[in-house]
């Protein structure tokens, strides 16, 4: 999907209506320059989407290479050093280039201003700048890969990161720049939500997606700068050996872990909170029922954001951290499960007695709830001090965070992409194909990662290129699952791309949602709204009725009969 040529593909499909160029942001201007220098949040969101999907593809290839190598316990085609580089790059690319920007920067950028009934985010130039910082960061990463690789793991722990001969500084510069990209996105969103909510949209009339984005942005502002300075200090350590983190020079490697996790634990919530926001939207819309416990979901987003800052030490239970800190962090860790559980229970309560339609986004939302719950509950084993000693740095941890990050964030991202795809590009995808690949993703995911829980609990350490025969069956199941998952993901994205060529034209409101982004045409006009749309309860579906001719939902005055089929 190339940025420059995208508008042309729509020319034929969409210009046959009564549309003028201004009525469709994709057609408002053409040429590569009109995309590269655009200040339109929708186009920036689309450019982010392209970049993020490319990184995801790259990270996924790394993952499949790793899993293929692990099919047997002996060497297949990667040396140990190559294996180390491969898992580092998989982790670093997936974390910094894909997951962190995925939902806020790609979907959030597109949706947030439209959800607010506005023409753009508060600082459009900064928004574009943030995208280019992302590009520069990605280039640094590519350079690190090309000129010698990286084998520290995505965590850059000292002292190894000071002594390894791979390109740590290039990668750290990439991290530094990507951090600023993330900060600018968060800053933009906070200001936009604070100062540009339309008249009538009070804090508690905001869609829950915006609450989660707001909470995410708070973390981005408060945590990411610490990553920046950690990166700079580590660069100085490596280049000059200033002795802060390097034990060889009297420094303290545990201190590095404090620095790193002060950002990187909250960063986990940068990844998962927006996903939770998407799920809140999807569950309500496809259950045709008002979201249950709106305020609790909203507050729990903020609570997760704040509690997320108090638990970073649980990554360091076996690092040499003091017992006192370990006990305190372990206790605090359990507190995060409270707001997370509040959300899950509210989603379940929303579905209860709802009129559930299993459209593809809803299938992903259901997969999310299932996988995230497993991921969250296994986190309790790792948060408990005693069991963590056994499970630390085993595949149990790998399985746990993949259930949360991939089963949670990635699944929600794809669900959100399917949900907003008609709005973004004005086309409907093939629903049955979408559902089929969702099923494949779900099965492939569980086949990949569930065996990892078992082998981790039985003592298979993570990050090992070789293993003893007793673990072979789990590794082989996992590898099969990984390729199934790969097929599912490629298929899921393929269904969407195919719809760009063959998809039916999308109605303004295909799902019957009541948030503001569905009140403008699909795709939105350049300025989103000519007149500010009326603000109501975002989860009140009583005035929406399915219209056969339109192919989507329309607003009817006054209470109307609810319809669920379409």
């Amino acid at each position: 999907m190339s940025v420059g040529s995208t508008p042309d593909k729509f020319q034929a499909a969409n210009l046959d209506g009564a549309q003028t160029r201004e009525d469709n942001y994709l057609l408002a201007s053409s040429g590569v320059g009109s995309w590269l220098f655009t200040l339109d949040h929708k186009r920036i969101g689309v450019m982010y989407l392209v970049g993020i999907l490319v990184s995801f593809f790259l990270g996924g290839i790394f993952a499949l290479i790793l899993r293929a190598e692990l099919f047997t316990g002996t060497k297949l085609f990667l040396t140990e050093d190559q294996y180390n580089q491969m898992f580092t790059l998989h982790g670093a690319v997936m974390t910094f280039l894909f997951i962190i920007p995925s939902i806020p920067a790609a979907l959030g950028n597109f949706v947030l201003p439209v959800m607010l009934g506005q023409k753009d985010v508060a600082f459009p130039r900064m928004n574009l700048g943030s995208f280019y910082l992302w590009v520069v960061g990605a280039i640094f990463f590519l350079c690190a890969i090309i000129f010698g690789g990286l084998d520290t793991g995505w965590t850059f722990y000292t002292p190894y990161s000071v002594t390894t001969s791979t390109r740590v500084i290039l990668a750290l510069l990439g991290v530094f720049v990507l951090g600023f990209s993330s900060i600018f996105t968060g800053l933009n969103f906070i200001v936009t939500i604070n100062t540009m909510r339309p008249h009538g949209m009070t804090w508690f009339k905001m869609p829950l997606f915006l609450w989660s984005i707001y909470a995410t942005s708070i973390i981005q502002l408060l945590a990411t700068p610490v990553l920046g300075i950690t990166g700079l200090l580590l660069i100085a350590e490596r280049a000059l050996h200033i002795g802060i983190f390097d034990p060889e020079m009297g420094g303290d490697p545990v201190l590095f872990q404090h620095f790193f996790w002060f950002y990187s634990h909250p960063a986990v919530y940068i990844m998962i909170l927006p996903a939770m926001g998407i799920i809140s939207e999807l569950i309500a819309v496809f259950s045709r029922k008002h979201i249950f416990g709106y305020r609790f979901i909203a507050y729990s987003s903020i609570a997760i954001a704040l509690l997320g800052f108090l638990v970073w030490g649980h990554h360091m239970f076996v690092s040499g951290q003091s017992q006192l800190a370990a006990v305190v962090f372990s206790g605090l860790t359990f507190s995060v499960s409270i707001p997370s559980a509040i959300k899950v229970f509210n989603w379940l309560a929303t579905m209860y007695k709802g009129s559930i339609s299993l459209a593809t986004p809803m299938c992903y939302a259901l997969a999310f709830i299932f996988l995230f719950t497993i991921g969250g509950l296994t986190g309790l084993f790792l948060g408990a001090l005693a069991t963590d000693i056994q499970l630390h740095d085993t595949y149990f941890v790998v399985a746990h965070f993949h259930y949360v990050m991939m089963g949670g964030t990635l699944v929600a991202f794809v669900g959100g992409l399917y949900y907003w795809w008609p709005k973004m590009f004005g086309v409907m995808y093939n629903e049955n194909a979408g559902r089929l690949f969702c099923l494949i993703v779900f099965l492939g995911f569980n086949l990949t990662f569930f065996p990892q829980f078992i082998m981790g609990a039985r003592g298979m350490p993570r990050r090992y290129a070789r293993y003893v025969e007793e673990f072979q069956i789990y590794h082989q199941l996992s590898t099969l699952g990984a390729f199934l998952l790969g097929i599912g993901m490629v298929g899921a994205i393929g269904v969407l791309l195919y719809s760009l060529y063959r998809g039916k034209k999308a109605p303004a409101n295909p799902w019957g949602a009541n948030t503001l982004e569905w009140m403008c045409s699909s795709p939105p006009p350049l300025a989103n709204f000519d007149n500010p749309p009326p603000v109501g309860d975002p989860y009140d579906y009583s005035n929406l009725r399915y219209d056969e001719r339109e192919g989507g939902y329309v607003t009817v005055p006054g209470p109307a009969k609810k319809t669920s089929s379409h």
Partner: protein
Amino acid sequence: MTVAESTHEHDAHGHHSPEAHVAHHFESPQQQFDSGKLGIWMFLITEVLFFSGMFCAYAIYRSLHPEIFIDAAKELNAMLGALNTVVLIVSSLTMAWAVRAAQLSQKKLLIVLLWITLALAGVFLGVKTVEYTTKFQHELYPGIYNHFAQEQYPTVADKYVSKENQASGGAEHATEAPAHGEEHSEEHGSTPATGEHEEHAHAEAGGHAHAEAGGHGHGGAQGVRNIHIFFGIYYMMTGIHAIHIIGGMGAIGWLIYRANKGEFSSEYFGPVDYVGLYWHLVDLIWIYLFPLLYLIH
């Protein structure tokens, strides 16, 4: 007193109507101003957190090893630090005054005050350069280039620093060694791939020429371990602060350019205000750096 109440006449340069400065997605100049204000404050918050990492490193090493700081701070010139503090405070005054001038549409005064602020920032950097130069003459470079570090960790020094660049007590070496060091700490390590490993080639350990380096008079640091950690923190803190000063100078220069074109008035002064806030934060951080680094005993 607000701008709207205090100014009644429009700026003479009427071709810049306030509406001309309102971006299309804002409803009013007020909304735009409030957004910018909130935005710059949010940015300042990230700056606070950014610097907090270095303050954290400082707090931990000072708390655990106060002797490092007491000994090493003798190498610093408190009077230069105090001078720079005063320079920054004066520049903060002129900046705050410049914001007032912009709010009251006093174009000429605004330009003069911005120029003074810019000049004071230059003075600050000048003093900083003098300070760094003195350190370098005493071979007090950051990290392993520091002669204390080389005395304490000769094997590490042999591993990373070529023989001819190692400290030997002679001042003539002072001009050579910093080349790698300063580049990295000042420029965010912009040429990271080079210079990292080339020193490894010279790793063969010969006579320990650096062993006698402690004898040349300054800083009676014999017996205190890890003195170089102070210099690591000192160079990182002041270096990154200096980068912020340079960034601020760029921003002030941009304000001067726009002020010359007559863009700022009581109806549109947001950028002056935002840059001012940034400049005050840089001052505010220095207010803490000064006693933490220079006034230790």
